[in-house]
């Protein structure tokens, strides 16, 4: 295990620290609340040469990601960060980066989407872009944010994967909350993360055309390869976490974190920082003899369907709590969890979808306790409800 330093950092600062350790060649970014302090810290690091990178102050989020794609296309390691409207403005480039197999790493500060305008956290920005071909991870705290950034390059640049990766931090709750964070040593990260090597680049000695047109006869074959690449990340994520744990002593649990699910009858499934509110409630109810559990989804793509099925196999009722809704139906996380369960041949638990936290609306300990009560009550009402 390598020696580590401790620092008191916000989630955004932890991301910036992780990016510095990963040694990107090019950073292109455009400011948006609550992402700004990430790119401010990075600009300072480039200025004081503690990070040797090209820093592009671009004119829009579309340009930020477009520039990262261009840099990746010559074999450079890249980073950008955005949030909310900025992520939506990037949408064209999101698909472009994944389709072109450019392993850009991006941090997204999860924030509500206008209208109405709101700068606070929910997950409608990234979840509405779940289908853009990126690997999507959701952090619970600043430490995990930092570790995910470092791991993201190893996962995204893996030759079996070559897919861009988005690390999501709940706006303000994670991005602006300070925690004591362990900083891996540069030597450790250098050992963990070798320089980016790819054949998928424009090389002056071996010229290539990239980002080309493929007509009906070929197009689907490329899409099948892309799908396979994202599925390949399922194993690469586990291998990467194992190597990371060996080097730095912090172990992660794969695509989901499962707490007390082995014998739990009532389980809340959620993602991001709200899991930190659910955990003490689970522990308290457990101490009272209640058989409750928590599944925290760490990756939405690739989706951990086997892990979800296994964790929920013995549950009587499951509540999917998410800061998201697909208007006119249900939450996107719920849709995915439901689909995973439908693939199993075991008896389905009762499934409820709790929509909350939109536009930064607080989700309290009391709210979580009520949700567990709701799961235990036989009654029913609507499957999908706002809390």
């Amino acid at each position, binding site marked *: 295990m390598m020696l580590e330093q401790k620092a008191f950092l916000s989630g955004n600062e932890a991301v910036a620290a992780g990016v510095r350790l990963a040694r990107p*060649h*090019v950073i*292109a970014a455009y400011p948006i609340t609550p992402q700004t302090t990430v790119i401010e810290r990075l600009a300072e690091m480039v200025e004081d040469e503690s990070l040797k*990178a*090209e820093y*592009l*102050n*671009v*004119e*829009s989020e*579309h*340009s*930020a990601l*477009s*520039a*990262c*794609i*261009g*840099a*990746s*296309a*010559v*074999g*450079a390691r*890249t980073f950008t960060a955005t949030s909310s409207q900025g992520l939506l403005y990037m949408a*064209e*480039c999101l698909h*472009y980066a994944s389709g072109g197999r450019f392993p850009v790493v991006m941090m997204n500060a999860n924030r509500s989407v206008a209208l109405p305008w709101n700068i606070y956290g929910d997950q409608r920005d990234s979840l509405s872009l779940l289908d853009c071909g990126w690997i999507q991870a959701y952090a619970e705290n600043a430490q995990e944010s930092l570790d995910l950034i470092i791991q993201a390059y190893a996962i995204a640049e893996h030759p079996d994967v070559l897919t861009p990766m988005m690390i999501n931090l709940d706006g303000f709750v994670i991005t602006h909350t300070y925690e004591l964070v362990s900083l891996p040593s540069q030597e450790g990260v250098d050992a963990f993360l070798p320089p980016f090597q790819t054949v998928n680049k*424009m*090389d*002056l000695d071996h*010229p*290539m*055309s*990239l*980002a*080309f*047109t*493929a*007509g009906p006869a*070929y197009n689907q074959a490329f899409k099948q390869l892309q799908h396979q690449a994202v599925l390949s990340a399922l194993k690469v994520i586990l291998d990467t976490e194992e190597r990371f744990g060996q080097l730095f002593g912090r172990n992660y649990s794969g695509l989901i974190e499962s707490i007390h699910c082995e014998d739990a009858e009532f389980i809340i499934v959620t993602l991001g920082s709200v899991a930190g509110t659910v955990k003490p409630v689970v522990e308290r109810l457990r101490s009272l003899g209640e058989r409750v559990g928590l599944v925290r989804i760490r990756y939405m793509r690739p989706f951990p369907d086997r892990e979800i099925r296994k964790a929920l196999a013995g549950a009587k009722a499951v509540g999917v709590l998410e800061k998201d809704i697909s208007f006119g139906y249900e939450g996107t996380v719920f849709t995915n969890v439901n689909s995973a369960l439908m693939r199993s041949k075991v008896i389905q638990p009762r499934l409820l979808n709790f929509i909350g936290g939109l536009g930064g609306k607080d989700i309290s300990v009391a709210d979580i306790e009520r949700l567990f009560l709701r799961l235990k009550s036989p009654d029913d009402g609507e499957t999908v409800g706002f809390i």
Partner: protein
Amino acid sequence: MGNRQEKKISIRNLSDREFFYGHKGCPGCGGSLALRLALKVFGERSYAVVPAGCMSAVGFIFPQMAFTCNAIISTFPGTASMLSGVAAGARALGIKDFHAVGFAGDGGTADIGLQALSGAIDRHEKIIYICYDNEAYMNTGVQKSALTPAGARTATSPVGNRLRGAVTQKKPMFEIVAAHGVDYAATASVGYPLDYLRKLEYASQVDGTSYIHVFTPCPIGWGYETSDTIAVAKNAVDCGLWYLAEFSNGRFTLTHNPSEFISVQDYLLGQSRFRHLQEEDLQGIITMRDLKWSNIHREWFS
């Protein structure tokens, strides 16, 4: 061209190598000629960035690639931003002696790509941006762009009882780019290839952003014979509706200063996109031309 150091480029010493070849461009395509000549000047250490548009549509159809240098299609708005990334990435990787060259159409430059172009110029990115201007969105079927000239019939600026083609003036991209304080900007025409080649060569030596706006007629969209592209491109300059100029070190110069103009009517009415124009329309176009030239003479030579 001032006192700059340059080897004199000519048709005679132009490279025999082809870097854009075997593409599916239409017969008589002015745009593909602009690319072909430019890459002969910039050479094999070029990264060509080509957004959605005619040249990407005809040059990158898997598995048949037409570029023999490195090339990539950018998003439609993303020519200049991707170029910026390519240049920054190559720089950061320690790659030396390369050209990051963009080839965007008129719509990709003056409409959807203007924001990214403005940003790149503002950062003085070491890139070369070439706008091949065929005056409409051609590969989607001839729709109006901001560089479609007044009066031109396109699929979205129709001719009828109320309208007689495009009602807007051609956006002054060269002047807009120059107003940024760009390191180098020029206009050119495939009808004056030597002038274009010299500007390409100069751009290849600029330590900063270069912008070349090259006039590239389109026989399909404009309605003239495919064998007449060079003549049309030359006539546009000779009748004064296009001009050959440069901007560097904060100064505008003409590289071709016609003492008299050939007939605007002949130039316009030789193309089916203008054939509906009435006498008052033609007079209006001539008035705008004369105003432009009086401004050029007053402002550039004062």
